[in-house]
Structures are given as structure tokens and as C-alpha cells.
């Protein structure tokens, strides 16, 4: 089992879709929301995904395909 801490940023047209619920239905991944901020025109959610590494990766590929931006919560590690 692996855990991954990431941030989803939703474009306006996806805010009303239950994407996180759908993700946990489609994939064997437990979602655990830690922080979020959603308004009518944008939103982000910081959450932890838990499951098999490959299943987590597949679920991330799926949300990315939906138009959600996925970033690591630690921020970019490669610096100047």
C-alpha cells in the first residue's frame, strides 16, 4: 500500500462534478481530504490517496484526463 499527498486544482466547469467521489468508485483508492477551498469559479483540494501504487497512478491519470490539474503538495522540488 502506498500513500500520495497531492493537490487537485479544478477548472470552473468541473467544480460541480463529484470527481473525488467518482475517483474512489472507479479505482481501489481511499481518498482523504485535508484542506480545500472551493468557490463558484475555481477550487482546489489537498488530499491523500491511499492504495496500490499502480492504482493511485491510474486514478491520477484519470483525473488529469478529466481536466483537473494535479500537483504534489510539497511544491516543486527541483530548484535553481
Amino acid at each position: 500500500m502506498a500513500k500520495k499527498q497531492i493537490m487537485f486544482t479544478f477548472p470552473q466547469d468541473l467544480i460541480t462534478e463529484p470527481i473525488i467521489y467518482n475517483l474512489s468508485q472507479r479505482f481501489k483508492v481511499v481518498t482523504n481530504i485535508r484542506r480545500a477551498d472551493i468557490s463558484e469559479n475555481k477550487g482546489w483540494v489537498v488530499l491523500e490517496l491511499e492504495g496500490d501504487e499502480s492504482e493511485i497512478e491510474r486514478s491520477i491519470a484519470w483525473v488529469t484526463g478529466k481536466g483537473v490539474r494535479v500537483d504534489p503538495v510539497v511544491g516543486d522540488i527541483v530548484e535553481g
Partner: protein
Amino acid sequence: MSFATALRCRKCGQEYPLQPQSLCNFCLSPLEVTYDYQAMAKAVTRDKIAGGPRSMWRYRDLLPVESEAVDIGAGLTPLVKADNLGRELGLDQLYIKNDCLNPSYSFKDRAVAVAIAKAREFGLDTIACASTGNLAASAAAHAAKADMKAYVFVPADVEPGKLIGAAIYKPVLVSVNGNYDDVNRLCAEVARRYKWGFININLRPYYAEGSKTLGYEVVEQLGWRAPDCIVCPAASGLLFTRVGKALDEFSMLGLTDPVNTRLFVSQAAGSAPIANAFLAGSQHIHPVKPDTLVRSIAIGNPADGYYALRVARQSGGGAGTVTDEEAIAGVKLLAQTEGIFAEAAGGVVIGVLKKLAAAEVIKRDAVTVALITGAGPRTQEILSSVVQPITVQPNLQSLEEALGVVA
């Protein structure tokens, strides 16, 4: 003994012991070192600091280090009055903080010096970082001095010339076949698996504290007076937030009067998630894909972006961006007025300062400090057009003809 007491979550306030950890277990927000400021205030005086070492270690009482410093001579760089540049920009009291003059040529030495001392205290024998330039050089240099092993991860497409400044100290240089995101992903996994001190991951709270010394020095060198305005470059936003923290601490400790410094964040337009959020009036940082030749501050998903935004707003400061061309013009202007050869990040600071002064956001009589955080020679390739020699034969006649002078 230092006065550091704990790591505290910047969002929810949860505290943790001082250990290698950078995120809160609960809300996944960044952790910050906290101190017993009452005890610190009793121990720290202007005289004691002024009589300390001629390096960043004169501020040791304000840092979380318990052990002997890993000292390659970082800090106490010159603060110079920049009258020529000031005349050009319409600023009467402009100063340049020349942090190019650190041992590995950037302000990162301040941050890494603290991070590596902590790594050693935590019993780690290996440090690591992911960097294409300044951080890599500084981490490798400090590891050499501390006799620790260093791993430096770089994307495979980085120009080899960029890496000499790190490779000379003989770290294990790992070139990763992939782009920036791939290296980010790999490093996050490496940091989870190995008991290494990852400078900008699990050692990040300590690394951050070292950056404060840049702010302390500005105030001390101005005669224990905080300036009216500071213009600072930002990548992850960490330095910017810690300069703010430095000023707050000095006034809290009674070393200066209450601080009213306005803090301005400067970024390259091609990688400006913090400045753009400020200018859009947004509370949220939208990560971007960096597209700029100012590589040293090209971070699209800035770990401290939200907090940097808050510091800019709460200080009554602001934000600005410049194009790559304006950044290069800024590098040239600084060199040609003040004799200081900065890297492109310095050009961004000068370019943004120029705009802020022209718009009178920064007023002519404001005591203003531009933080120049890295030296030019590491990124010379962006300036090859400045070399336009006059070619002559080895005799006086040819020289005088070419120069258009007569004896």
C-alpha cells in the same frame, strides 16, 4: 543551546518535535521552526550581534542550530549605496544587498548552512537536493566542508556547463532521464524511501531559517533600521517569507523600532504564479509551467506561494514581473551603473524595481533595498551578446585608428 522549541504547522498550529519533517501530518501544510522569544530577547543585544563573527553566524542566537556551525563563510555580504542606479531609476536612497558574494555565489549558502548543520545533528550522514544550479552548488560545497555525502539530482537536459559549479565539490551527481516533473516525482519518492537529509524537503524548515539572515543583515547594515521598501526575487517564495519573518523578529526582540517595511515580490513573467496571484487579487496560487530563461527562479508550483502572497499583502507591498528581455536589461543596468554582475534573477529584481519606481509605487525618498541573490558568471550564456570587442593589429596606429583617437 538554541532557543528553538518546536516545528509548528503554519495553518493549523499543530506542533512537532524538531526533527526532519516539512509537512503537517494533519493538514499537509508547511511546518516552521518556533522559538522561545522571551528567552531569546534576554540573550540577544545589538552589541552582542555586532561583536559576533563576521558571517551569518553572528545571528546564531536567532537560528535553530545546537552544534558547531558548518561554516564556509556564508553571509555578511556588502550592502552598498547605489547612487548611480538610483539616479537612473529616480530613487534617492537605493541600496543593493550584494549576496552574489557568498562562497558559492548565491544566498543559498545561508539556507544550506543551517540545513546541513541540522542534518548532522539528526545523525544523518547524507544530504540530497534537486537543483540545476545555485542550490546544487551550495549543498555540495557545504557537504564537502561537513565531510558528508551529497546526492544532487538534475534533469538530463541541463547544460553540462551549469553543473560545474556543483560537480567541482564532488557530490554524487545523478542525471535523470526525464523532464522537471519527472525529477520532482522521483525526488519525492527518494525522500520517502531513504534516510537522507533532503535539503528542500525534510530539512526545509531549517533551510528556511537560514534565509532569515539576509533580512537581519540588511537591518543591521542600515544602522539597525528596517528599510521602507525591499524588492526580493521569488521562486518557491521561501526567501521572501523569511525576509519578512526576520524583520518581525528584530522588532519583536526590541532590536529595532516597529517595522513598516513594504515587501515586493519579483518574478519572471514566464514563471510568475505568486506575482500573478497578487496582481489578480487572488487568494490562491495557480501553478504554472515555467517558460523563462531565468532558470534559477523558475518554479511553477511554489511551496510557500500562499504565504509569500500574504506577506506581500500584509506588508502593504506588492508584486511585479518582467519579461526575459527586461531581466537581461536589468542585469546590464546593474553592472553598468554599480559594477555588480548579477545572474538573471538579479535582473528581474532590477527590472521590477524600475517599474515600481516609475509608477511611484516606490517613492523617490523611500529607503529601498534590492536583494541581489545570485552572481552572474554561472549563467553567462544568456549574455553572450555583450562581448563586442574592437579588433586591432598589435601596433599603436591600428589601435588609434580603431578607437578614433590621436595622440
